[in-house]
């Protein structure tokens, strides 16, 4: 009787799948895995990155499309990956390529497409803001971007799992609101499961798994606060220009010990972040 009840309740089945490791996880395109591996290697070079991206025509064309948007493009049109890397730098192209690849893996058609899209917007905006917060605090810029980009990856992963559970038609997929509530509840374990499956840096899993005050996060406390402030800034900019008072009271601001003029310096980057966000979504 209990087994039957579980079988008919998609939320229970999702929780069970997360708990026993059988959650249906999206597959990371191999090129994205290679791009990520290159980013963590001492041997990464511009030619290698261009070559990698070119192995996936869809990815290559998407990168070229984005680098030709106003936020990234200079005076001349960018027509080749090597040119794009020369113009924007290896690190930025790597970030763009990774963002596109992760997005394509997660944003599959399904009943929760709009929710996934929204989570993705938050992730991108958080990554971009976290990078600027890290720069202002003299913290590692690359780690902040990666953790920002993946901070809520558990949400689309859980929604993906929920969709898979309901695919056989035996049960009705929950409506958007309870599905999102469930996904947010599963954010940490689902996110960690994906990070481990995709062999993303262990730091990302540590970041996603952390719960509690900053002073319980040990050496990762500053990174977590950096990304948390990125989350706050990303959330605040949804409602129009960010009001300084809205974010100055944030616990992450206090932890990072950012003064009002430090925050003003950050908020001055809002237009730049907005432009990059728009173009990454182009």
């Amino acid at each position, binding site marked *: 009787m209990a087994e039957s009840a579980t079988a008919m309740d998609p939320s229970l089945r999702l929780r069970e799948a997360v708990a026993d490791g059988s959650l249906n996880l999206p597959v990371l395109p191999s090129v994205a895995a290679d791009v990520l591996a290159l980013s963590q290697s*001492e041997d990464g070079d511009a030619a290698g990155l261009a070559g990698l991206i070119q192995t996936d025509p869809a990815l290559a064309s998407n990168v070229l499309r984005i680098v030709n948007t106003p936020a990234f493009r200079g005076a001349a049109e960018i027509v080749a990956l090597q040119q794009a890397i020369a113009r924007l*730098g290896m690190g930025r192209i790597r970030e763009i390529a990774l963002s596109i690849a992760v997005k394509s893996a997660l944003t599959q058609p399904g009943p929760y497409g709009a929710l996934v899209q929204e989570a993705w917007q938050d992730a991108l905006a958080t990554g971009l803001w976290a990078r600027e917060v890290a720069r202002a605090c003299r*913290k590692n810029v690359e780690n902040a971007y990666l953790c920002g980009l993946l901070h809520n990856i558990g949400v689309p992963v859980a929604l993906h799992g929920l969709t898979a559970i309901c695919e056989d038609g035996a049960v009705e997929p929950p409506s958007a609101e309870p599905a999102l509530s469930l996904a947010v509840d599963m954010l940490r374990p689902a996110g960690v499961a994906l990070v481990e499956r995709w062999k993303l840096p262990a730091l990302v899993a540590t970041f996603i798994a952390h719960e509690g005050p900053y002073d319980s996060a*040990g050496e990762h406390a500053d990174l977590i606060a950096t990304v948390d402030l990125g989350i706050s800034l990303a959330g605040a900019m949804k409602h129009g220009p960010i009001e300084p008072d809205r974010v100055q009271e944030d616990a992450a601001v206090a*932890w990072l010990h950012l003064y009002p003029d430090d925050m003003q310096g950050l908020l001055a980057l809002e237009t730049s972040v907005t432009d990059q966000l728009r173009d990454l979504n182009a």
Partner: protein
Amino acid sequence: MSRVDVFVIGSGPAGQKAAIQAAKGGLSVAICERLREVGGACVQFGTIPSKTLRERAVSRTRAMRELARSGREELDQSISVADLIGETGAVLKAHDRYMTAQLERNGVLVVHGRARFLDPHAVEVQFANGQIERFEADHIVIASGSKPRRLPHIETDHEHIYDSDSVLSLGYLPRSMMVFGGGVIACEYASIFALLGVEVTLIDRYPMPLGFLDADLASHFLEAFERLGGVFRGECDVRNVTFDGVSAVIATTADGEELCADKALCALGRVSQVADLNIEAAGLTVNDRELIDVDDSGRTAVAHIYAAGDVVGPPSLASASMEQGRRAACALLGIDPGDQGDFLPSGIYSVPELASVGLTEAQARERFGDAVIGKAHYREIARGLIADSASGLLKLIAAPDGKLVGVHIVGAAATDLIHIGQMALIHGAPHTVFIENVFNFPTYAESYRVAALDLAAALREGGQGRTAA
């Protein structure tokens, strides 16, 4: 509004010692730190992290070398900076706890905010949350420290081109790195990263790195740096440094040459951090080097305001700053701080370590017309051979009459070992004190005995010691 007897701006070595000395003298003291933790740049970005990183790099490299030598494991060059920094983070936390406890134990009020003079006796503190509190004090000690010098032709972005405050945020070891500068910070980081397997190019406009040191020490450092794979480009006038937008930092020299590396570190000195203090409201100004002028006791042009540490200029050593802070507090308490003497040791935590006290050989020759030298090489010392640290040198400098005037050491334990020489200099001991007394064996301190014997031989021969030739 709060009122205290003494308000100290900055909790680095100078500020901390000033605050504690003043509190021990029975005064009410507040100390203001703009960063989250006490300790200032010394703890957050400078002395403690770089020395911890060095220690970790040296011990790990040694351990891996031993493993490789025993055939149990290949030498693993893939040391993660993040791991090393992580360990450094634990040291910083422990240091913060210890210092905070020490301040609390002495009843010092610690406030974390930015201080700004309102008038000669009033300071406004802005907290990170934007709130403001006014403090009034009978005495104020300015110990706000320093920050990396920024140059218009070097675009420090903390992602590709770092300064000494951000270099420890490096997430991974780059394949190559350019280090601009030839001073203490540049040479420390250049040699540490070279030890970790990074291809380091040290670039400076002077012909030798660490040119202020005794020439033998500077040469020894350079040779050791080159043995680690480092390259020194002296007399190199860099005109522009920028990230090329691809994967490299490009440095363009005055003669048009382009040098490149994955990352770059700009370590061209530090400048005092007084711009935000509004010292004009207190009746103070900075001199043409943007430093605050003080007398021997640390008193500024305004009698009740003192300054100590990097804001008053060289030697800009944590050790000297501590003493300056203590002396400033003694002065405002009206108590005798005691005689400091002329023998201030300096320590450089590069690979290898360097330490110095007293005159260099060149300075001694200039002052006395000649100098007598005694040297001990670590390869002659049992401890050096046992510890696989045979590359080192201890150099004694004496005036022509045999009076010791300087001690210079490069190699393992140099920064500790120097204090033996410092004590000898302070007490005017003859070189024979190292010959006629017993040292533990085997120790690096035995170097003093060997160098003193060399010096004695040189004195008998009326010239250079046997190892100096």
